[in-house]
């Protein structure tokens, strides 16, 4: 079984990935016979290049993706270094995982409502402080440089990176390292940055790449927070693919190829920046500065994290208020009346949708986790990593825009007469869940201290017994975190559910997205909160499980 794991994983992934790629690349080259495209050429790329504002769109995707990831990384690392072992840090570690399960759309619409000139912040301050009887005409949300979009992405990515960092730290003797640095006279933040960060960073690397791929290609957040004249590239790809003029799909496919290139470029630039930091960081570490002036930095990062947390919390709180709001006019600080209408509308639909959401998420996550653990365990035993090709297989679904990628997947499922069923939905979820589970777990697993295994083996335990009684319990936290992330990814998937399920498998997310197209904040808020509730339960269970199973035996 363990020996076959990589083959199984490849089999699960290769069909959809190959179909998805073909379904993107061929139309990008002008080939889609059903629409009369039967010659291969670069004309579609020429047409793409002629799209107004194309390079601005491309630059927006790249800069927002890199900027938000860098900001989230600095915030996570800075806060962990500054606040380690404080009560605040422990509180943050507990509070952070709920944020992980917030759908991007929900956070985006909450944040937009918080920051807009007619939003909650303005309502709380008006008219007594601002003198505004009507909202002023200020371009804050959807600014042309994508700053509000980058802020939204940063708020959403920071919890993910923070959880990955916690999971990575779990298997490091961080406390002992810090005791050593402290005895050498290093201040805590400086000691952490100089001695712990270089050791924990390799475990964060793959999750960072996943974040980069996501942030450069985000659609749902960009529609709400990103600029529109022009929009980031990923949004325009979706528009082209959905254009009633079906020949625009050729331009859309070419755009999807460019979009994938941007995600790769973002990762390449990040890797280049890593080199730069190493070159610059070594002399800094060697110089042996003990960090006398670090107080300012500590205050700064802790404040920044506090502000980010407050913004996220207020965004979600504003939606909770909206979900029970009657009429709520500017500049009232609170709605004029309370109404539970939004919660009453769903009814029986919601119960069945929640059921489908849970079963699909559980199945996809369990399969992904089993495959990933088996692959990683095989790596450990053979001491050899699979080839580069497997990495690409994992990254492709995260890098190629879903709307183009899924067309090919859909064709594959239809050819196999698999579409429209629960299994097809689970499979298409697996294609996206498996990469996230792998990227979340691989760092911690690959750096697990092999001496524990050697000791257990020398005591006569079989490799399988060692896996279940030593490796998994010691890695319980990373495993539980990876499972929770997998479940959260599955719950949030919209297009894969719609396409593979032929619209016949309704989940909370398909319901939420369809109903949110009304534009009514009450509806969006109600479904958003429901979407948070499920993964939240998942994270709580994962947390409990981790505590239960990580006990020494």
């Amino acid at each position, binding site marked *: 079984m363990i020996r076959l794991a990589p083959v199984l994983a*490849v089999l699960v992934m290769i069909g959809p990935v*190959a*179909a998805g*790629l*073909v*379904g993107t690349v*061929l139309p990008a080259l002008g*080939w889609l*016979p*059903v*629409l*009369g495209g039967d010659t291969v050429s670069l004309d579609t790329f020429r047409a793409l290049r002629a*799209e*107004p*504002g194309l390079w*601005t769109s491309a630059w927006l995707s790249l800069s927002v993706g890199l900027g938000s990831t860098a900001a989230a990384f600095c915030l996570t690392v800075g806060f962990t270094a500054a606040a380690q072992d404080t009560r605040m840090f422990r509180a943050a570690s507990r509070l952070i995982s709920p944020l992980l399960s917030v759908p991007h759309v929900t956070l985006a619409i909450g944040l937009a409502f918080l920051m*807009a*000139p*007619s939003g909650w912040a303005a309502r709380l301050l008006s008219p007594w402080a601002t003198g505004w009887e*009507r909202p002023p*005409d200020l*371009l804050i949300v*959807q600014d*042309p440089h994508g700053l509000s979009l980058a802020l939204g992405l940063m708020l959403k990515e920071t919890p993910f990176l923070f959880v990955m960092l916690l999971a990575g730290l779990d298997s490091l003797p961080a406390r002992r390292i810090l005791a050593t640095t402290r005895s050498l006279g290093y201040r805590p933040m400086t000691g952490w940055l100089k001695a712990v960060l270089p050791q924990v960073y390799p475990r964060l690397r793959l999750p960072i790449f996943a974040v980069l791929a996501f942030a450069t290609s985000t659609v749902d957040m960009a529609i*709400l927070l990103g600029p529109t*004249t*022009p929009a980031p590239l990923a949004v325009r790809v979706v*528009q082209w*693919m*959905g254009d*009633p*003029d*079906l020949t625009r799909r050729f331009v859309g496919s070419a755009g999807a190829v460019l979009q994938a290139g941007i995600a790769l470029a973002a990762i390449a630039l990040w890797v280049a920046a890593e080199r730069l930091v190493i070159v610059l960081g070594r002399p800094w570490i060697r110089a042996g500065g003990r960090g006398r002036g670090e107080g300012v930095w500590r205050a700064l990062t802790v404040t920044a994290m506090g502000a980010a947390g407050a913004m996220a919390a207020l965004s979600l709180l504003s939606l909770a208020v909206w979900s029970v709001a009657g009429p709520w*006019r*500017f500049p009232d600080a609170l709605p004029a*009346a309370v109404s539970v209408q939004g919660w009453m509308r769903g009814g029986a639909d919601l119960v069945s949708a929640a059921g489908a959401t849970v079963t699909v998420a559980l199945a996809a996550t369990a399969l992904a986790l089993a495959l990933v653990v088996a692959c990683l365990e095989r790596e450990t035993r053979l001491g050899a990593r699979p080839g580069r090709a497997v990495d*690409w*297989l994992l990254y492709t679904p995260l890098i190629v825009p879903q709307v183009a990628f899924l*067309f*090919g997947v*859909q*064709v*594959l499922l*239809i*050819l196999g007469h698999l*579409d*429209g069923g629960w299994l097809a939905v689970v499979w298409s979820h697996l294609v996206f869940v498996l990469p996230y589970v792998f990227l979340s777990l691989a760092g911690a697993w690959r750096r697990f201290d092999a001496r524990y295994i050697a000791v257990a083996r020398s005591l006569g335990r079989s490799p399988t017994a060692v896996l279940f009684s030593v490796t998994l319990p010691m890695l319980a936290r990373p495993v539980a975190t990876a499972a929770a992330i997998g479940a959260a990814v599955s719950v949030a998937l919209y297009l894969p559910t719609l*396409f593979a399920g*032929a*619209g*016949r498998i309704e989940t909370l997310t398909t*319901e939420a997205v*369809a*109903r949110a*197209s*009304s*534009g*009514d*904040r*009450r509806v969006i808020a109600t479904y958003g909160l429901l979407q948070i509730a499920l993964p939240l339960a998942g994270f709580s269970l994962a947390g409990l499980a981790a505590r239960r199973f990580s006990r020494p035996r």
Partner: protein
Amino acid sequence: MILWRTAFVLLLFALALPAGRGQSAETRPWDEIVAAAEGQTVHFNAWGGDARINAYIVWAGERLKALYGIDLVQVKLSDTGDAVSRVLAEKTAGRDSGGSIDLIWINGENFAAMKANGLLHGPWVATAPNFALVDVAGKPTTVTDFSVPTDGLEAPWGMAQFTMMVDTAYVDAPPRTAAALLDWVQANPGRFTYPQPPDFLGTTFLKQLLAMRVATPAVLADPLDEAAARSVTAPLWAYLDTLHPHLWRDGRSFPKDAGALRRLLGDGEISFAFDFNPARASAAIEAGELPDTVRTYVFDGGTIGNTHFLAVPFNAAAKEGAMVVADFLMSAEAQIRKQDPRVWGDFTVLDVAGLPAADRKAFAALPLGVATLSPEELGPVLPEPHPSWVAWLEAEWERRYVAGR
């Protein structure tokens, strides 16, 4: 291995050449269709963004179950394009029967695209008995969808007309001409905007302005001739060039769609919005989305109107059931209920004067919403331009206002 697999899938794509046109005329008598429909499950792919419409479809399902033994299932979409994409994928994969979509709520460009690519079943609409009740003469858009003949490939379901909403708390006398609108916006900067084309409502606003600014609107019904279009549309671009600097956010950002536009009106950021459903404002006021000071009005000289339709994909699994559903939705019973503003408030496609007395009375007894205009007040309906104008207008708009800022 990856290469090998890729080649395999590539081959499959290449094999899936279009198998000619998918359309085939419906020749069976209606009784036979109704008999075949019994026991079928009809997957109705319809935009799911309005709880009231969803509830109406549930009611229709209950009636269809009782009358014909048909199970109606709504597949709620956020974008009709997703359904078009699905039919396209099925055709690419060579699935010419047993398709997953039985009935689509559709009109305009989506219909034109599906018709042109042979993705629809029919013609069949003339076979449906209730089609005889439709006011084809008085409501010509029931058989010409954005100036494209429906050719019996889609059944009319409801009428839409471009309707302005104004918050009377801020505007005393709403501007009823393009020139008056420009004056108002210049005098009240930042309080007017429109959804960004190619959103269909945003594009409709362009078409409405075009119809009001063009010397000879008849030219819009013809397929686009690019050279002529440049001179025809010159007054439109001149108008927008003057208007944009005074728009909400100085015209540097635009709301995404009708929902976002309405949200801005509800938040008091802007003083106007508009919609294709004349009853939308009343519904939004009742739901607390819009303040009760909002009223509707139309431009002098008429506003653009169209019809929304029901179509059956060429490979639908339950073609008979889908046709019976569409026929029921055109019945007086279903149309009366649909026009009730407490249910949905969508205007009928039927010739009310030609209905039996009881149905006429039921239509006459329907209330209007608090902010809804009567059909007489809605005024003349302007036709949609030929669909070829849409793509060109959108591309031109993007070229002028998206790039190079």
